[in-house]
């Protein structure tokens, strides 16, 4: 046993260092002594300041928590011995940060993790209230931590230190935010600084001007209502006049933004419409409409029932959309439109697609003569052409009739095409010449499904678990592609089913928010009704990170363990909420 213990510790100590009350300790031995074990931890039961929270790292690097649990167990067996006697190990730190700089961060801001865990708003619609997920102690990113994270972030390979996955709050509550962003800009001089989501109530003239010094910058900002009184009642954060005025300040300073609206039922529909028109006048890059969602934890008394409110909002959006020059992004994006074709969901103002006259509802049939079936096909072709610095000729169907459009290539960086590409912003191929698509149906997940099924020829009953919004689309895709030579799916053996969101309750319909217990209970329900699958396929998007953990930190493997049904995750991408 001693050898086992020594071996484990030696391996761990290559990448972490033990601590006692915040100072490094270098144990030279260990004495078995249970009576002396279990030294008091710092903080005396309260989570100590200055420490990272293992729980918030578990989605990215669960082995940190494993090491912590092992060390805690070792601590209960006896005492570590230092040069001057027993030392009370009560924590550990990462050592050799170069070793730890191995985690993918898509953007320079992403490598920083959560900028602020605090929020000073008490939005009526916030579904994070209650005990939905694990709650970690809130923290603000310090400049010192940010600088170390940036030092180890490599923009060329997009890798950095492990970062906590926390609830994000209001970023401008972090008084060091602009200094941190300035450091990020210095680390990656040409990167677009995005991932900045705010309620805007701190964005006064001076702050926006300082933010503009860091361009290229992109902001997501909550409007919710352009009426200060209604907004104040809904968000309960104060300074609503500042928040509403922030939109024109961003525009005047050439910072593009997505304006966000959550049309909660307490907001009259005519006010929702006024807010959409306000954002259109302010030249938002996109207008995001988040259809109101709540959980049984956030709202023990349901604020509305059924689909009626969403239906009213859907009708309003479809009526107003043709009158706006700004694309409307409705989330969940599959609520209003469930199809796999390359349906144009809007065009960004002043983009090549905008100037060419493309509009909502057009369906792209071919790009440069090459037929495209899906949004993914069209997007891939457009990215390829953009990277090659070329214009793009599109054949589209408008009101059932074919037409041809040419999208010009983007101009030089200094050209101002706000909000599509303000002066000084580099054209980005992923902006697809300004064509806005909703989330594509992930056809690669059907391919992955076919591969998994080939690996399980013995499975007679195959159950695919999906979502309320995904089910119809999935059925359509299986019907269209399932029999083709590429897929060859045994459709007669496949059953689709939608587990209820028992854990979250409320009106949650997005599959990414299923948790393991939802799947387990659903499989048990099906078994009680006489159906027991041989193989269960679940889209991987319900897990957070790469480790197959649900939002509660429970492994998808628990589903198999608890039900005895073989479970495979089907790789897919999350659908935006």
């Amino acid at each position: 046993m001693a050898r086992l213990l020594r071996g484990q510790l030696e391996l761990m100590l290559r990448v972490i260092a033990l601590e006692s009350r915040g100072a490094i300790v270098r144990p030279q031995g260990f004495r078995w002594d249970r009576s002396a074990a279990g030294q008091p931890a710092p903080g005396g039961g309260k989570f100590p300041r200055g420490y990272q929270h293992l729980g918030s790292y578990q989605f990215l690097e669960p082995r940190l928590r494993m090491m912590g649990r092992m060390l805690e167990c070792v601590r209960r067996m006896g005492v570590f011995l230092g040069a001057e006697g027993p030392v009370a190990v009560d924590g550990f730190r990462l050592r050799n940060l170069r070793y730890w700089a191995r985690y993918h961060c898509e953007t320079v801001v992403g490598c920083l993790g959560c900028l602020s865990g605090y929020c000073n708003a008490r939005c009526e619609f916030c579904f994070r209230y209650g005990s939905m997920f694990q709650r970690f102690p809130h923290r603000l990113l310090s400049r010192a931590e940010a600088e170390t994270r940036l030092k180890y972030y490599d923009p060329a390979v997009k890798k950095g230190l492990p970062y906590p996955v926390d609830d994000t709050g209001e970023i401008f509550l972090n008084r060091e935010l602009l200094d941190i962003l300035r450091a990020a800009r210095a680390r990656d001089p040409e990167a677009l600084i995005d991932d900045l989501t705010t309620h805007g109530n701190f964005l006064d003239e001076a702050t926006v001007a300082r933010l503009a010094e860091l361009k290229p910058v992109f902001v997501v900002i909550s409007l919710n209502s352009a009426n200060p009184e209604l907004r104040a009642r809904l968000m309960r954060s104060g300074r609503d006049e500042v928040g509403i005025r922030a939109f024109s300040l961003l525009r005047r300073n050439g910072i593009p933004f997505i304006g966000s609206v959550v049309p909660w039922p307490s907001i009259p529909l005519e006010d929702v419409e006024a807010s959409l028109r306000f954002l259109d006048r302010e030249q938002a890059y996109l207008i995001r409409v988040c259809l109101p969602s709540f959980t049984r934890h956030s709202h023990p008394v349901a604020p509305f029932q059924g689909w009626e409110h969403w239906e009213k909002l859907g009708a309003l959006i479809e009526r107003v959309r043709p009158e706006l020059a700004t694309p409307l992004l409705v989330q969940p994006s599959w609520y209003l439109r469930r199809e796999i074709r390359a349906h144009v969901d809007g065009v960004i103002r002043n983009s090549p697609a905008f100037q060419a006259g493309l509009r909502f509802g057009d369906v792209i049939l071919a790009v440069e003569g090459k037929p495209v079936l899906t949004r993914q096909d069209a997007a891939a072709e457009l990215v390829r052409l953009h990277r090659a610095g070329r214009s793009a000729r599109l054949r589209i169907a408008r009101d059932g009739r074919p037409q041809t459009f040419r999208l010009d290539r983007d101009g030089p960086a200094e050209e101002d095409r706000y909000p599509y590409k303000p002066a000084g912003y580099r054209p980005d191929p992923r902006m697809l010449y300004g064509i806005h698509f909703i989330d594509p149906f992930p056809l690669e997940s059907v391919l992955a499904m076919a591969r998994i099924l080939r690996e399980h020829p013995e499975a007679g009953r195959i159950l695919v678990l999906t979502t309320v919004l995904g089910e119809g689309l999935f059925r359509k895709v299986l019907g269209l592609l399932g029999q083709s030579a590429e897929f060859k799916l045994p459709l007669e053996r496949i059953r689709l089913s939608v587990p209820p969101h028992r854990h979250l309750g409320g009106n949650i319909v997005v599959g990414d928010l299923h948790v393991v217990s939802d799947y387990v209970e659903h499989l048990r329900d099906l078994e009680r009704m006489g159906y027991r699958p041989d193989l269960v396929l679940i889209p991987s998007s319900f897990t957070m990170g790469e480790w197959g953990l649900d939002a509660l930190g429970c492994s998808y493997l628990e589903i198999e363990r608890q039900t005895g049904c073989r479970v495979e995750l089907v790789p897919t991408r999350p659908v935006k909420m």
Partner: protein
Amino acid sequence: MQADERGGAESEEFVFRFTLEEVAEGGDEQDPLVEMIRRFLNDLQQIGYLCVKGRRVYVDGFVLNNEAGVLRKL
């Protein structure tokens, strides 16, 4: 002290530290020597699975050689 022990190559770097208090579990009846193995196997099966000849298997207990016949459940 090695140069990188403070967390990185330079002493002024931010220290990423974690407390053991967060993972402390109550109930000391269980022998920590056994508990360590139990935790390791449990944790391992949360982030992956064990295989026998390439096939996925779950273990729900273990037996230590020095206490033959005593099945420790996970």
